[in-house]
């Protein structure tokens, strides 16, 4: 079962995600891979108030009773671990990024930090937007080429070697999206300052 050191990581990251406004009280989920098992937040646990009993351990390669309490998106997390080298997954609902995902197929940062970190965030679309096999396969496939992707109208999926990795990409994505939004609100033309910036769309 989850040990104190690992639980502490979940607790801090959960608190930070909520405090940064990256998800609603109960929305989203996160997990880590330990050996051939997944430790994932239980369905309905609050990000801001995580307790050690809010975590479920389940097998990676086969289903077990853990699925009864695990997050709705366990199927997506499992598929991501099977298809990528991720050791941690975060799914949450960053608002500005969701707003941008409603009108574009990719989010390309215009700020310096975002360009360095992310270069491009693809937006994928699925009919059944929560916990479906189609969703799991689409998202896992997209994450084979990117460390964070947006699901249109739903939220982001971010991967890393640690929870902190995955959290950084979520945090960066929302900052990137916020800057794009503010720039659009200004309505002024962009003065390009980055060499090869036209290549980011091919990233």
């Amino acid at each position, binding site marked *: 079962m989850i040990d104190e*050191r690992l639980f502490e990581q979940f607790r801090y990251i959960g608190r930070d995600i909520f405090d940064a406004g990256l998800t609603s009280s109960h929305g989203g989920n996160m997990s880590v891979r330990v050996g051939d098992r997944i430790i994932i937040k239980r369905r309905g646990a609050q990000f801001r108030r995580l307790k050690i009993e809010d975590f479920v351990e389940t097998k990676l390669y086969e289903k077990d009773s853990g699925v009864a309490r695990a997050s709705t998106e366990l199927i997506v997390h499992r598929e991501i671990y099977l298809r990528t*080298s991720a050791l941690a997954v975060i799914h949450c609902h960053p608002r500005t990024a969701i707003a941008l995902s409603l009108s574009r197929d990719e989010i390309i940062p215009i700020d310096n930090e975002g360009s360095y970190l992310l270069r491009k965030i693809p937006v994928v679309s699925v009919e059944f937007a929560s916990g479906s096999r189609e969703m799991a396969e689409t998202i896992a496939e997209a994450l084979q080429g990117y460390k964070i992707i947006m699901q249109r109208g739903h939220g982001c999926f971010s991967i890393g070697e640690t929870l902190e*990795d995955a959290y950084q990409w979520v945090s960066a994505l929302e900052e990137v999206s916020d800057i794009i939004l503010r720039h659009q609100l200004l309505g002024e033309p962009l003065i390009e300052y980055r060499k090869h910036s036209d290549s980011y769309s091919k990233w």
Partner: protein
Amino acid sequence: MEGWNYKILDIDLSAKTITEQPLDEGIARHFLGGRGLGVRLLWDLVGPDVEPLSPENVLIFSTGPLTASGSQTSNRFNVSAKSPLTGGVLHANSGGWWGMQLKRTGYDALIVRGKADEPVWIEITTDGATIKDAAHLWGKGVFETTELLGQDNNKRNVLCIGPAGEYLSLMAAIMNDRERALARGGPGAVMGSKNLKAIVVAGKQKKNQSADREQFKFMLYETGKLLKASPLTSQAFPEFGTSVVMNLINEIGALPTRNFQESQFEHAEKISGEHLAETILVKNQACWACPITCTRISKTEAGEGEGPEFETAWSFGAQCGVDDLEAIFEANMVCNDMGMDTISVGNTIGCAMELAERGLIEGDLRFGRADLLMGIVGDIALRRGLGAEMADGSYRFADKYGAPELSMTGKKLELPAYDPRGMQGQGLVYATGNRGACHETGNMLGPEVLAIPRLIDRFANQGKAGIVANHQDTAAVVDSLVLCKFTNMVVSVEFFARTLSAVNGSNFTADDLMKVGERTWNMERLYNLREGFTKADDTLPKRLLEEPVAEGPSQGHTVRLEGMLEEYYQFRGWDEDGVPKQKKLIELGLDAMVD
């Protein structure tokens, strides 16, 4: 050429034949080159019945699909063989110019098999290869041999062994470009056993051209941007060399001292990169196509040359209780000229010092005796006196005197400069290393100390196995492309995949490359299992498992290996004995390798 020449040069020194064979395109994509290609070829060529120092062992020198492309640090190459030190898989890689030059001769790899009747050297150009008499070179040091064979960094590059290889020291390295080393596991002894003194490459072919030049330029630019932005690659390494980590490792209580009896060295500052820069450093230098320039050129009254690197400054320094940087550098130079692995040699000397202090061997060796270093290094190379026994490495030496537990080795390979009691993940890296206990096959220095990509709890155990396995697979990718691991401290595998895509013209994702890394790791595991290795070999010296660190920041810790190892096997898809399961082998396309 789009990454590969699809040609392997095959030289049989017994039969005196020189042939070419095609590099299979499927193998190239599945193993890339370098270390991956090396172990794949080794699997077919060298079975369990072959003695490592017999003519039936082979040396496989291999480049990668990025070699000579001009991509940052694309100068490196690999050697593979069966190790005479460990009895398992050997892979070692080196920078400089030689690898780039081999690629430019038009070959991806070179296989050397058999044994020459008399000492020979080989010359390879774009017109082919010739085997030449080396009678005038045998017995000479690496520096003189390199000069006699006409080293010219941009046109003609020399790889050779020194006397240690000729005397079949199991710690003998193969040296290239004078002072670069293919060091770990005793490749120099394999070369010496073949009566092969040197291999000279002079390539004239155009550099490895990219299929998509615009994308390649973009990747060069983006990679360069990150290397410049990182304080590690743009400031720390250029200014202080790899020894920049000496004080950091010491501060956290992970610098093995006096044969791992302690984890902090009271004189660490005197052997640090900062002290080196203030004292004997002449300048820094770079390998071909490398913007990092971490190489140190130092000088004392004894001469001028490369080094010392962090590992060397540790092995002759803290490991031996020596704080005299000049003496360390001079021992380093003797090692380079004799052609030996500085980690293994320094570690073995530290072991001998402890044996002497405990009265198990006679002689003057004691911790702190800097004045004895150069002499004992020479004795090991030339198998003189006590050196004759030490030349076979720490484990065999300590075992001979009834104290194998004082040998700080894993699978008989000498441990490097990190005390795993203060870095639990590093302990798992050592214990599971296919070539033996070595940091280079999955170094946890980044996440456990330097916060690269971010800091993780170095004393934590749960969840560590996956991170270690990922780092091992990543290292296998870097070693197969073949690039320098320092780029990977800043640039992720995603960048390598995009650069390779630009060079080759077809799409490689980061996960494609990670799968290559995992395949390579499992292939090496299969090789060792075929050689008779078992779960019992995935372990560490008793001292690290049972003797808690007495004081300092790591006080009270041992390596809690058992739980991590179980999690590691599960993560890898291996059974409880550490054997890859059929399902995993099918997933990696390796199922045909085993019955």
